[in-house]
Each structure stands twice: as C-alpha cells, then as structure tokens.
C-alpha cells in the first residue's frame, strides 16, 4: 500500500546463503527446531499479535505476527521483552500460595507521615514473612476470615417495608451492594472471561464494592463519551488511523504508550496525507514526530478545544455550511441551540485561551485553522480531523468535561463516524477495554447495565417479563411502571402508551440484560408470586445487588472514614503504587483485616497482603481480550505457569466454590426460599396467566469442560466465553452458536467480497478520498463490538464519503427479523455490522441502514411482538449448563391471538439456532440514535444540604453565570488564603457549589456544556476566580474542605491556591505545577516492567523531567537528587534537566511544569520508596471520581544525595545464564 513498506523486501534464501555462519556464543537461535505459538501482546491496548518460538515449556524468541493487521509483524520494546516474563526465564515469579506470618503496620502511622523515606523506614519493619501453603490451605484461610468479616458487618438480605427502597409488606430480599465488607479490585490485565467471572462473583456475593484500574485511567472517557455518543470507546481502529487528515494528540503520547499505533501515523505523515499536531505539557516521543507542537498548561484542555470551535464558528463560519446543518441533525440540538452554544464559545477567543493555556496566539490560530479546514463539514465529508487522548485528558476533576469538549468539537465539525475521523481514547492495559465492558466497576453490571436501587424497579421489571420480555416498541408499561422508571407515558387508567424515547429504550435494554443475567447466572430478579408484580404483599426479590458501591478512589473513605470495608480481594492490581495520595491506600490496606492478592510478582501491594496467590501472565492462560479499538482477539497459551501458579480464572472459580461450599455465598432468593421461577406471561387480551416453563434457581459457576490442559479442564475459559455472549448484550454476536465457534478466534486479514455484509467497505474496492488508498476494515480479523462494527457511528460513510449506495435483500421468511425488514430490499448507507441469524446460521446485516449513535443499546426483538407473540430470551433457558456446554435452550414461544394462544417450538417457525437471540435493528431504531451534543449531568431539583437546589442548563445559567463569578471573586479578593473560606461559605450558604441563590432557590449549573474550570490546585488566583474550580461540586471531594473528624489532616492535604502551598513550602524551594506519566519502557506501576531485566536496563532509576531554566535557577544538574513535595508528601528522585519541559506564561505569570514518571516503587528488582503517587491528590472528577493526577501543585529543590534511595537485586536475573536451549 505504501512506498515505505516496499523498502523492506522479504528476502529469499539465495543459493549463496547455504553456507551457515557459525557465530558461536553469539546469535543463531535455531528457530527451525522450535514450535511456533501465536498469542496477543500482554502489555498495551494496541493488541499486537505475537509469535513465540518455544521448546517445551521454554520460550526462545518472539516476533510480531505478520498476519495481524494491528501490527503487521512489528513490536515495540515491551512486546519484545515479553520473553523475560515467563517462569522459565524470570526467577522472581511467584510459584506457590503463601500466607503471611508476621504483623502488618499500624495504619495510623502512615497518615501522620509526609516523607517517603520515613514511610519506607517504617514500612520495612513489616516486610512480609511468608509461609508456603497449598491452594487448599490458602482457600481455607481466606474462607474462615471472610466468614468472620461478614458476621462482623451483619450483611443481610432481608429488608422490611420502609416505603422507599422496599415497598413490600411481605418484605424485600436483596443485598445492599455498597455495604459488603470485602472490596474487590481486579486489574485490567485480566482476560474478558476472568473479568466477567469476577464481576459475576461479586454479584453473587451481593456486592457492588468492586472496581478496577479503569476508574483511574479512562472512567471519565467512558462517562463522557457514553453519555454523548452511546459508548465509551475508541471509534476508529488503529489501521483506520492511517486515513486521518489531521491528527490532534491532546493529552496522549502514543509513541511512548502505544508505540506500534504510530506505524500508520508515520506512514501517512510521510506520504503527506496526515498532519500530526501535538499539544502537551511535556515534549515526548510523539511530539518529536509532530508537524506542529505546542506546550500547554495541564488542565486547560476545554479552553483549547473551545478555541478550535471559536475559530470554526467565528472565522470559518461553519454553521452556515450545508454540511454542518445536515450533520447537526444527527445530534439533539437544533440551530437555535447552536446559537446559544456559540455564545458560550464566544468567551474563548484567542487572547483569553492563550492566557489560560499558555499557548501563544499565533500557534493557537495555526492549530485551529489546520484542524477546522480538514474537518468533515469543511470538506463535505471527504477529509477528517481526529483527536487522540489518554490520561492527559482524563485524570482531571474536569475529566468528563474535557472528553465532552472533544466530542462536541467532533460533532460540530462532522468528524464522527467516518473512516479517518473520530475520537480515539487509547486505552492503557491490553484488556482495559474488555475489563471495562465486563464492568469490574462499582456503578454498573457487565455490559454497562444499570444497578437497581429500589423495589419498584424490580416490580416494573417483573411486569415487563409478564409482557413477554418486549423491546421498547412493543412494551405497554402500567402507570406504576412508568412512574417507577420515570418513563414518558400517556395513560388512560392503567392502560398506557409509552413514548419511545431514549429513556424507554435504555430501560428496555437494561431489563433485557437483567434477564440475560438471570438465565445465565441461575439467579432470580422479580416478585413472588411472579404474576402479581404490583401487589404490595408480593415479595420483592433481587439477586442483583442494589446501590452503587465504593470505587478505587472512594474505597479509602470506605475503610478509613466510614469503616464499611474490612477486607479486600485483589487480582493483578497494585494500588499501593497506582492510587493517588498513596499513603491513604497504604493506611487502608494496613487497616484491613483480610488482604488477598493474586499476582505474578511480590509487588508493593503484596507488602500489605495476608495471603499471596501466584497467578499467571497472559501467555500462560487462554481467553479473549479486547484491544483499544474494541477488537476481540483470542490469546493462546504459550507456556505453563511456573510451579504451582494458576490462571486467575481457575483461582477465582475455585475460591468461589470453596466460599459457596462453606455457606458464604447465599442468594437473596435462597433466603426468601425461592428455588424456582415459574416463567410466566400474561395474555394481552384475555389477561390469562400462561406459565411457559419452570426453571430452577441455583447460582451457576460450573466451567469444567475437557481440554488438553488439566487446569483448563477444571475451569475452561471457552465455556465462560460462551456465557459472556449470552449474558452480556454488548458482546452478543461474538460467538457463532450455529457453528459453535468463537469469532474472536478468526484470523482472516483478507478482504471480504463486495457481496458479503459490509463487503463494499472492506473489499478494498473503495479508495479513501484523503489518502487515495484502498479502504479496509478487516471484518474477519477477530470480532468487534457492537455486532462486529469496526467504525462506530458509521451511518453515512458509503453515502457521503464515497457517494455509493448498497443494498441488502431480506427475502420473505428467510431471516429472523421483524416485519419492517422481512421480505424487503433495504438501502445500506454505512457500516451495518452483522449478526449470526438464528434461522439461517449465516451472517446478516445488524444495524440497517448503518450504525448510528447509541445503537446496540436500542434494539428490537423478532420473537416478541405486541398482541402476536411472546418469548423469553433464547426461547427460555431451564439449565445454564446445557446452554453453555451444549448450546441448547428450550426454544419455545407463545403465539397469541385475540382469544387464545399456543405454545410452540421456535423450530416450527424455522428457527434452527434459538440460542442466537433474535434481536434486529431497522431504520426506526437507527433513527432514534441521536448524539447528545447537549447533556446535563445534574438534572432536576433536589434538596442538598438542606437547601433546595435547581440545576439549570446553560440557556438559563448564562443569566446568572457572571454574577456568580463576580460574587465569588469579590469574596476572594486578592488573598489566596480567602479562596478556601469562600468556597466553604458558598457551599454553606447555597447547599451546592457552582451555584447562586435566587428567589429562595439555589440555581446550580447543570453542566450541559463543558466550560473551563481551574484544577483543584490552581497556580493562578486570577484564573481560579474567573474560572472557579468545579471539584467542590462532588461530595467526596468536600472531604478536603470539610474534613471528617477521624481524618482532620485531610483539610491540609489539598492546596487550593499557590498561597496555600507556599505556607508549607521550604524557603529554598520553587513552586511548580506537576504532572505524572508513565514511560515507553515502564508499565504502569512498574510491577511487571521493573522485574523485566530488558526493560529495567533501559530505564533503571526514578527521575523527574525538569525544565532547563528552572533547573538553572535552582542550580540543579541532570543526575542530581531533587526533593519534590506537595501538600501530601515529598519524594526524592534524580533530575533530568531538559528543554522538553515548558516555562509557561499564564495570565502574566511564569509557571513551570515538572513531570514525574510514576512506575516506581519499593518492591521488586529495582526499588525506591519514592512512589510518585504519594504526591498526587485524590480529589476526583465530579462525575466519575477519577483522580486529578495530571495537574497539581508542588515544589522542588535540590536535595542531599543520601535522601535518594535506590536499590536493586544484587544479581539481575541473567537471561543468558538461565540457559536458552
């Protein structure tokens, strides 16, 4: 395709080559004598394919998989260094379960300390002393402690009538998911099957106190994008990046974090079809390749993005373009609202934005011009500009606002949903997208499904079941249901007709998923008896735990302040290094009475563990992983784990079995004595009760299934994979039930023919107008959610970008679709995705005529049609084991007529594979998918702190905004020490923050549009007055303004202004703005990479990037030891003095930015007590709680050499001596 690749011809074995060269001890691995095993990279989310060369259980070499379209045979250094992770190479790997024999530190000690060295000296005294035990002994130990903690916390399933949460006179049975005393944290390196099972386990425990790394990395992306577009995911694939015209990298650094993703960028840049624009507080490896680079102050991204819109509206006048007017109809705003929005944008002109961001005016203009002129609306959808980000946008108290601003830019410029355009949050871990989708998250169930919060929702759900599990279009909720769910209905008595708006569509989707959970997990959600959902004497039972739980940020409060959390179960997570204000995590883990950690090395977190379980690295397990662009690929086993180490899935299931056996897992339905469900529907006309079938209620967790490996035979990931397809609608379609084949295993990189589904777009027959190269989607490489769509929201591509039409025939009766499609030839306008049809067993288009916003969440069902047919999901499932192991369901349906009904087998209707659900998406559904350009995060009126608060949109708020700002500013005056008291005063006066009192009510901004807010620790008083910090809107953050009695010191742990920091700062230090980063060579907490000799060789020691002029002022040279402090703590690292860090002019004052890589800690083969996260604040984003680790205040000064503590294993694991052959 490209000139560049032609430069590297595959070399033929010429005759002259027959003579081998003997290099002796150098080189010449005899690969011909090895077995090749393919897998997927365990490090970042690009998802590169690997080929390992193995001999028995030993691994000799690794190369990129040349067939894989994501990396085409290439790897970065981490992928290469993978070989040092195997047990056969790495002596530091854990091999046996172990129990701690010595005491743990006193948690109170950490809270008082501020110096990293001091903390380490204390911690060292409690370095764990381990005793090796068997798995049996380890599980017995855990089970015993677990039971004690449950007893201590008085966890109960039964709740009496209280008129609020429980409205049943017969009582309600559910667990309060936020009260479960044992938190679960399970890392984003887990495979999908493991992620699903751990969340399922928590659901069966009755707990929503579960979370994972994603909270700390991209939770704001998910919340910002999902609320705007439907899904919180990257919309372009990595190969698709090659078609982009202008790529704005804002708050990301892919050359460091996702090196192989730079391949298409570099190629297109050299070809001249892509301009790379990088805006960042640090000049990193990506910046080194940029066509245009600007330093900006961290925490000012909304302002920067709004300047692009300012240019677009006020200089380019895009709102007068036809393309704009047409595209904006795909969103929820009209031209009038656009005009209102423009007024907000008007405030962000070049001078103002330059003052906020520190980017010179002319550079701002250059960036905006380039970006806007290459956008969809400016080029009539022929060229597109796209945005990439990572933690630079997300880890802010304004994280969701930043992402919303990026999404709004793309919507306004028509850059969304085309090849070469989109929004690209590159995820961190290899499977963080998958573990997020499986929702190891405190606020949702697998597939982003709502957690119930009161018994009325359960009643409404039971009523929905009685109507035959309908989609929103066929649903006739009662008035009570409409009220309980907040649906828009027009009712005549109890006969209501439902307005099919997004709320109705979402509730029907959540309900469909709750049903999926019930059938696959063997649980029950509903009323007893089933046919009287609204009877106040019906018992309400929910095996789905209620209420949003503690997350990765708030759990320290759950432990230290609320005293709810008493134990923790961790899989592949290292919060001792990765959590903000790390000492609070150290304190929490010390306070907990049971800390169980499964990992592959003895990490920093292991120092707090009571039980340490040896897990397996990805290459020692098998299962599916979802890369950043949502492609599922199958990762194969390459070698066995060392010693007695086990795949994490095995550990989870075996632990569950033990806990269940010991009576620790008890479902609410069991407490209620309900052991079977009468699956019932009510005849819509005769109101007759029809019992379709009965199913036993018993939690299902049996994944034993024959395999060539013993541990997989005991717990087989392939069976879990099938369960995910059935249980999680988002992932439905990834398993081909007709051929019993996991589509994640597909490895076909060849183009589809134009006749196949999405064939035209994948065939290469079309040339992208920007690059003039053939368009490819790689539809047969793995599988992509939703329904194998590769480019999200791709409704218009064929039509607008390529000026093409395509058609698909649905011959009468052939496919399992509803009347609107059956027997029709339909027009296709974009990528449709596909479903295995339950009648034909072949692929048919899913989203017709193309994939639009929110699609996947909105759906129709072919087998339930109001007044005609009623069917349970899959035609009913009596036995989850049969479904998972044999691909069988009951496959029955009820055919309705005016005065009777008939229960028949779906097979009689031509359905051959009833396990393949009959969802379909027609133009009526597709049209409902509107992007939420405008989206309030705070709605309605409620009482906060005893005050009545009304949340108002920009339209109304703009009347009050300026008076709020001026009232607040005049309170603060010119004294930085007034800032905090003024925030306090406002909250106390109005009940809510960012609010103002008018006519007896508090009016508060709803945040329907983002605006610039200063970070919680702001370097500029002037800007902090004009753009007040939004952080204090969040109740959790208020801890730092109104500290809790048990932790009064929290009040001093955030410096709202420079003035506050300066009170704590040593005299000879200089104030700085700090950011943290990881490195290309080091992986997150470094737990894996610091123990990998190849990676540690490249960057062995901790350091900070310091701007050259600042270093000069302080007399600091590269290699010197520096003290870096914040309101939380101080650490000691080496100085890297560089011009790659900025000196910025912010509102007339000099601001220096210092950056500290955070993958360093005190355990493993390269150690330092100076954990960078000791410095970071745990104030969180006001929506998702993600911590503000990308901008906070601190100081720096030169430190004595002996403050620097760096140790390493005396002898590195020496790869050569370990023996290769």
């Amino acid at each position, binding site marked *: 395709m490209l000139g*560049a*690749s*032609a*430069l*590297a*011809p595959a*070399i033929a*074995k*010429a005759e002259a*080559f*027959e003579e*081998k*060269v*003997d*290099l*002796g*001890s*150098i*080189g010449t*691995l005899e*690969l011909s004598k090895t077995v090749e095993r393919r897998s997927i990279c365990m490090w970042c989310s690009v998802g590169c394919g690997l080929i390992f060369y193995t001999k028995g259980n030993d691994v000799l070499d690794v*190369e*990129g998989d040349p067939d894989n379209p994501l990396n085409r045979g*290439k*790897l*970065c*250094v981490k992928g*290469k*260094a993978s*070989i040092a992770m195997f047990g056969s190479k790495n002596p530091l790997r854990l091999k046996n379960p172990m129990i701690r024999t010595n005491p743990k530190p006193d948690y109170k000690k950490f809270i008082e300390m501020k110096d990293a060295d001091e903390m380490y000296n204390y911690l060292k005294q409690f370095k764990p002393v381990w005793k090796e035990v068997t798995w049996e002994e380890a599980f017995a130990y855990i089970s015993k402690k677990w039971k004690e903690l449950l007893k201590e916390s008085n966890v109960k399933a039964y709740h009496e009538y209280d008129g609020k949460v429980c409205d049943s006179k017969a009582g309600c049975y559910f667990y309060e998911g936020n009260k479960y005393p044992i938190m679960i944290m399970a890392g984003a390196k887990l495979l999908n099957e493991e992620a699903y099972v751990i969340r399922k386990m928590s659901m069966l425990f009755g707990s929503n106190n579960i979370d994972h790394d994603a909270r700390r990395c991209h939770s704001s992306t998910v919340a910002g994008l999902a609320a705007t577009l439907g899904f919180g995911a990257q919309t372009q694939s990595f190969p698709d990046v090659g078609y982009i015209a202008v790529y704005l990298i804002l708050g990301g650094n892919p*050359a460091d974090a996702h*090196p*192989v993703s*730079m391949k298409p960028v*570099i*190629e297109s840049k*050299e070809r001249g079809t892509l301009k790379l624009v990088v805006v960042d507080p640090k*000049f990193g*490896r990506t910046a*080194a390749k940029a066509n245009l*680079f600007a330093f900006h102050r961290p925490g000012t991204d909304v302002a920067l993005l709004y300047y692009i819109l300012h240019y677009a509206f006020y200089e380019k006048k895009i709102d007068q373009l036809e393309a704009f007017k047409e595209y904006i109809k795909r969103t929820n705003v009209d031209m009038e609202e656009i005009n209102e929005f423009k007024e907000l944008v008007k405030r962000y002109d070049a001078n103002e934005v330059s003052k906020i961001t520190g980017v010179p005016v002319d550079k701002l203009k250059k960036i905006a011009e380039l970006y806007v002129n290459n956008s969809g609306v400016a080029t009539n959808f022929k060229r597109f500009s796209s945005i990439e980000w990572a933690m630079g946008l997300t880890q802010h108290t304004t994280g969701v606002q930043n992402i919303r601003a990026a999404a709004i830019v793309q919507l306004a410029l028509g850059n969304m949903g085309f090849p070469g355009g989109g929004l690209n949050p590159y995820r961190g871990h290899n499977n963080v997208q998958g573990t997020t989708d499986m929702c190891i998250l405190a606020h949702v169930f697998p597939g982003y499904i709502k957690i119930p919060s009161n018994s009325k929702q359960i009643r409404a759900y039971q009523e929905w079941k009685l109507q035959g599990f309908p989609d929103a279009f066929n649903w006739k909720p009662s008035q009570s249901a409409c009220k309980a769910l907040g649906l828009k209905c027009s009712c005549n008595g109890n006969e209501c007709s439902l307005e099919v708006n997004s709320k109705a569509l979402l509730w029907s989707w959540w309900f469909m998923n709750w049903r999926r959970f019930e059938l696959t997990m063997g649980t029950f959600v509903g009323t007893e008896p089933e046919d009287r959902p609204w009877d106040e004497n019906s018992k309400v039972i929910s095996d789905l735990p209620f209420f949003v739980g503690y997350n990765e940020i708030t759990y320290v409060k759950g432990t230290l302040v609320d005293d709810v959390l008493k134990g923790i179960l961790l899989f592949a997570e290292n919060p001792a290094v990765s959590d903000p204000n790390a000492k609070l995590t150290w304190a929490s883990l010390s306070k907990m009475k049971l800390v169980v950690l499964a990992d592959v090395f003895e990490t920093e977190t292991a120092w707090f563990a009571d039980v340490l379980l040896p897990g397996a690295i990805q290459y020692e397990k098998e299962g599916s992983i979802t890369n950043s662009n949502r492609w599922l690929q199958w990762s194969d086993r390459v070698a066995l784990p060392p010693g007695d180490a086990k795949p994490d899935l095995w550990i989870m299931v075996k632990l569950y079995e033990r806990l269940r056996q010991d009576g620790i897992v008890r479902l609410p339905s069991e407490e209620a004595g309900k052991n079977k469900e009468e699956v019932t529907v009510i005849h819509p006309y005769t109101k007759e009760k029809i019992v379709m079938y009965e199913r036993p209620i018993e939690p299902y967790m049996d994944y034993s299934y024959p395999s060539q490996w013993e541990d997989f035979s005991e717990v087989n990931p392939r069976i879990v994979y099938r369960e995910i397809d059935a249980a999680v609608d988002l992932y439905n379609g990834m398993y081909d039930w007709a051929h019993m084949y996991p589509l994640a295993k597909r490895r076909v990189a060849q183009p589809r023919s134009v006749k196949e589904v999405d064939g035209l777009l994948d065939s290469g027959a079309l040339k992208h107008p920007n690059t003039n190269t053939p368009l490819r989607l790689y539809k047969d490489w793995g599988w992509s959610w939703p329904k194998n769509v590769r480019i999200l929201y791709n409704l218009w591509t064929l039509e607008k970008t390529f000026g093409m039409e395509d058609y698909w025939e649905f011959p009468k009766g052939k496919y399992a679709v509803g009347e609107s499609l059956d027997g029709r030839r339909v027009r296709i306008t974009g990528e449709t995705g596909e479903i295995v049809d339950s009648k034909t067993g072949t692929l048919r288009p899913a989203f017709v005529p193309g994939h639009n916003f929110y699609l996947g969440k909105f759906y129709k069902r072919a087998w339930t049609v109001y007044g005609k047919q009623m069917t349970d999901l899959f035609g009913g499932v009596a036995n989850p084991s049969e479904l998972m192991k044999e691909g069988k369901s009951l496959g029955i349906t009820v055919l309705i007529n005016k005065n009777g009904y008939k229960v028949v087998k779906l097979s009689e209707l031509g359905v051959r594979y009833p396990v393949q659900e009959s969802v379909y998406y027609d133009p009526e559904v597709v049209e409902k998918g509107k992007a939420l350009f405008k989206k309030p995060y705070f709605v309605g009126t409620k009482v906060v702190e005893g005050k009545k608060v009304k949340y108002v949109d920009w339209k109304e708020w703009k009347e009050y905004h300026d008076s709020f700002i001026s009232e607040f500013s005049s309170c603060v005056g010119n004294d930085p020490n007034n800032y905090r008291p003024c925030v306090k005063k406002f909250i106390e006066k109005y009940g809510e923050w960012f609010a103002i009192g008018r006519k007896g009510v508090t009016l508060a901004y709803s945040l329907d549009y983002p605006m610039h807010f200063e970070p919680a620790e702001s370097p500029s008083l002037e800007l902090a007055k004009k753009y007040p910090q939004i952080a204090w809107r969040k109740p959790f953050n208020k801890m730092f303004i109104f500290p809790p009695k048990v932790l009064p010191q929290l009040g001093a742990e955030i410096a709202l202004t420079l003035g506050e920091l300066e009170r704590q700062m040593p005299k000879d230090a200089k104030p700085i703005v700090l950011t943290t980063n990881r490195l*290309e*060579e080091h992986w997150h907490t470094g737990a894996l990479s610091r123990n990998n000799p*190849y990676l*540690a*060789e*490249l*960057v*062995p*020691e901790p*350091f900070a990037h310091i701007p050259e002029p600042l270093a000069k002022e302080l007399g600091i040279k590269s*290699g010197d030891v520096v003290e870096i402090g914040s309101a939380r703590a101080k650490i000691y690292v*080496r100085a*890297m*003095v560089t*011009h790659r860090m900025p000196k910025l002019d912010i509102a007339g004052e000099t601001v220096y930015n210092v950056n500290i890589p955070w993958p360093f800690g005190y355990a493993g083969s390269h150690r330092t007590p100076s954990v960078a996260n000791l410095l970071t604040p745990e104030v969180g984003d006001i929506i998702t709680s993600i911590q503000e680790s990308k901008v906070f205040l601190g100081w720096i000064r030169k430190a004595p050499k002996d403050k620097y503590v760096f140790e390493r294993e005396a002898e*590195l694991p*020496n790869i*050569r*001596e370990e023996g290769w052959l």
Partner: protein
Amino acid sequence: MEYASVFIPDRCIGCRACQTACKIWNQRPVEKTSFSPDFTNPPSLTPDSFTIIKFKEVFDGEVKWIMLKEQCMHCNDPPCVSACPTGAMTKTEEGAVYVRPEKCIGCQYCVEACPFDVPKYDEGSGKVYKCTMCIDRIRDGKLPACVEACPTQALVFGKKDEVIQKLKSEGFEIYGERLPNVGGTHWLYATKEFKGKLTDPKYFGLPESPAAKEGALPAIREFGVGVAGLAILASLLHAAYWRAKKEESK
C-alpha cells in the same frame, strides 16, 4: 550479492525495540545500567549491546528531539578486518562484517582500527563483540533482528543497490553510500526531514570522513605475520589475566 540496512531518523520514535531485539537474538546478557540524563542507555555500545538508540535534544528556541541508532557500519573496506591478525574479523559477500569468537584472541587491534568506535572488548571472555548485521538471520532468509522488530519502518533492509536507488528516487539524502577511508558502508542513514544534518555535529554528527586511527593498521602491514604472532601471544596472556581477575572477584 550485497545487502544494506538503513536507519531513517524521520520515522524513528525511539521505542528501542531494535535495541532489545538485538540483545535477545544475540543472547547478550542484560547490563547493570544507571540513570541516564537523556534516556540513552547504556550510554555507548558495549560488548553486550551491539546497538543502542542515542537520544539528543537540539534547542534553538524550539526544542527538537532526535534519535540515532548506532551499531556496526559494515564498511566496504573495513579497517577492523585489515587490522585483525587472526582472521577472526571477517567480511562476507553480503557486506556483513562479523567477528568469529572462537578465532578472536582479544588483541583489540580492531578496536583501535575502527573509525566508528564499534568493536567492544569483553573483559570477561577476553574477546571482542559487535553487531553481526545478523548474517546468521540473513542467510536464513530473515531480516536482521532489529529491522524485523522496528514498528515504524525506521529500519529497512534490502539489496544494497536497490535500496539506495529507491531511497534516492523518493528524495532521501543518504549517508554511507560512499565514504572516505572505508569506501562506503552497508549500514546507511537516510533522511528527508533532516537534510544536511546527518553529519552536522549539532544534530546527528556522523563523521564526514571516518578517520582511520593511527597505529594499528600500518603496524600490521609493516611487520607482517611475525608481529601478528606476537600480538596473538600477548592477547592470549591478556585474556588469561582478565579471566583470572574475574575468578578472583567472584
């Protein structure tokens, strides 16, 4: 048939997959490095690191960050081969210059002779090590390990004349095609972005005229085999000394 590898700094993202790929393929041990002020690590070629990526900041109001891959240049007329008294240092018809460890006596004449400071003496084994151009892989129909790994095609490999022709036709400036003293090299550098800067000391600083070092080369020529024999003896003693020293320190 002559082959060549090319490093194109315009495309390099400094990921160092090449550096580690080389180490893995050639089974060289990991070194105990320390903090590097500019990321380059180890700071120069060593007997265990046949190739490194050098990072360099160029600052003239705006900052640039450039990356340079260092390894053996595989000269047309390799001074190290001429200097080697035992024939351990060999040049192949593909253009690769490599050292046969079993013949190397550790005299280090090649070290002296090399104008690019490439061969490195390993005190442990008493032998010299350096990049082999992956001649073993080339003869097996594979790309050199570093080229094979490079994610952004900053490294390319092919038949020397074809590669040069192609790069030229695409407008690249090439370093190494012809060079004084060494004739030219089989490792080339090519750029469009940094034209005129490959030999600029402020930027990449590749030697315009790789100077043959004094001493080693003529010495061998003048004194011929006899002296070479002495040299072998001296080197064997030298190697034995180092081995003994290492034993002691254990």
